[in-house]
């Protein structure tokens, strides 16, 4: 059903259609609208689930951890400081291979305190052992949320769905919501083989010494690699039902002749698309959006970069003292690839700074540099967002 929704509302309805049994969360902007909407559904009796309104994100993550271990489909959402407060538990959930879904309404991490969007929070936990999927718009947010529940159930690896805070969570636009019937057809009832059960008592979370720790970690690493196929399959099967495709591991658009590519994460992709369409650059450009940050889709990325001379990695996060986080991972991924493109690192939109259409020419300019650009914050001098100085004609 196509209707106009605020992103958070649409995500909440998608979660509800996946029939979660336990939902736990702690309020933090800009995630709040999602959890409020879910609470409303439960309190109105439209959703049969336990809502656990915890005293901290730490407990939110812990509650869904326990619920998943007890064999319940579990969901939580957070952002920014919340994700960092959860960090210890996030590693734990993945290490224990507990299936559950978390929506991260991406937001900057203080200090300075800032409630607006960037990707620093998701980046901070990218090595926790989770699957991390980024959404370019709310339609993808909805579709990816449904897919996430199937992926986590099949892989026993937790899935973090990253949605740009405010820019998507608070964006009101027309969205195709799946029908309950479609979701039920796609998503089997939740089961968990290692469920806590007195009838079959197991010990979960044992102490593992040097003699076996490596093997357990290797198991997780290998299974995350293998999860790529499951992520692609989940997207394909969902497309078979809804006709909507989220790009599997990553999206790419643009002519084969293009020598310049721009790779980004999340909602900037739409702005770049619009910019290319409305302000055609002198040379063709290939636009790419990485959907799957973890596991990192090395093969897909190399495939998408074939024929490029320059690749600009545009990202909304930074590793102070090491440049762009994604840019560095891309460089590593392309290392040793025959005719690998030059990789330019571009950082923008930190702490919610508006990324206007005018970003495109700046990027193209960047790629013209004689030497590859290691890392540059491209919107340092950008026009500040409203309030701004008046220009009355």
């Amino acid at each position: 059903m196509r209707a106009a929704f605020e992103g958070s509302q649409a995500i909440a309805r998608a979660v509800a259609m996946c029939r979660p049994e336990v939902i736990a969360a702690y309020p933090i902007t800009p995630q709040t609208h999602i959890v409020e909407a879910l609470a409303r559904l439960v309190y109105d009796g439209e959703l049969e689930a336990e809502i656990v309104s915890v005293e901290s994100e730490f407990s939110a993550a812990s509650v869904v951890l326990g619920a998943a271990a007890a064999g319940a489909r579990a969901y939580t959402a957070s952002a920014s400081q919340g994700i960092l407060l959860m960090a210890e538990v996030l590693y734990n959930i993945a290490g224990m291979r507990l299936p559950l879904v978390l929506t991260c309404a991406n937001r900057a991490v203080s200090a300075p305190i800032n409630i607006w969007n960037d990707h620093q929070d998701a980046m901070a936990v990218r090595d926790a052992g989770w699957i991390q999927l980024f959404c370019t718009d709310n339609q993808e947010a909805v579709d990816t949320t449904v897919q996430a529940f199937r992926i986590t159930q099949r892989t026993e690896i937790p899935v973090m769905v990253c949605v740009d805070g405010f820019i998507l969570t608070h964006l009101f636009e027309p969205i195709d919501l799946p029908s309950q019937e479609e979701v039920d057809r796609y998503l089997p009832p939740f089961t968990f083989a290692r469920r806590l059960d007195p009838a079959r008592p197991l010990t979960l979370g044992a102490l593992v010494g040097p003699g076996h720790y490596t093997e357990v970690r290797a198991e997780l690493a290998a299974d995350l690699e293998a999860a790529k196929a499951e992520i692609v399959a989940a997207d394909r099967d969902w497309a078979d039902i809804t006709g909507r495709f989220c790009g599997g591991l990553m999206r790419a658009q643009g002519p084969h002749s293009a020598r310049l590519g721009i790779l980004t994460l999340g909602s900037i992709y739409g702005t770049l698309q619009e910019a290319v369409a409305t302000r055609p650059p002198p040379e063709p450009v290939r636009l790419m959006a990485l959907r799957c940050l973890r596991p990192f889709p090395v093969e897909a990325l190399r495939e998408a970069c074939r024929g490029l001379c320059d690749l600009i990695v545009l990202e909304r996060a930074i590793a102070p003292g090491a440049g762009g986080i994604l840019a560095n991972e891309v460089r590593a991924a392309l290392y040793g690839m025959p005719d690998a493109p030059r990789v330019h690192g571009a950082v923008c939109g930190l702490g919610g700074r508006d990324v206007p259409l005018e970003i495109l020419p700046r990027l193209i300019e960047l790629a013209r540099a004689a030497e590859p650009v290691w890392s540059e914050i491209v919107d340092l001098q950008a026009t500040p967002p409203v309030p701004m100085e008046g220009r009355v004609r």
Partner: protein
Amino acid sequence: MLEIRIHGRGGQGNVVAAYLLAAAAFEGGLYGQAFPAFGAERRGAPVAAFVRCARRVIRQRCQVRTPDALIVQDPTLLAAPETLAGLAPDGVVLVNAGHAEALEPPPGIAPSRWIALPATAIAEKTVRRPIPNTALLGAFFALTGLVPLEALARALRARFPEATAARNRAAAEEASRRVKGGAWRRLVDARGL
């Protein structure tokens, strides 16, 4: 594409106005996008929201810097330079003002592009609350003919309980009768809508 910026104060239903505008556009068969200038503002502070309408999917997520239309829910906001900032050369302004006749357009804006309306008074009469947003929307749709008023009515019903929706619809209709229908039609045509 038509880009609209709505200025108001926290608590005046600024975001709701933006969402309603986009929802009405959607109901009228257009693609509508709305989002607030996400702030940490509290009640009373100046706030802005953005709306885009087009006949195709709108992909950009950036803010509206050069609006084709401004909806100003509180005339005192006109004192702040950013309120009128970036208005397109042929852009229009709809202002809520108690004494509409007394309010002159600033230099550089032709009277034809300037309409003041006692929306709060209308709201107090119809909605029985001093929330001018739906009255302003009614007037805006009448002036631009962007979508029929019925589309706004559907959007109102989707968002509010029956009675509230009806009262707001009354406000919109009352306001629409106070303005010259289609006065700004040319702007809308010029934006391909």
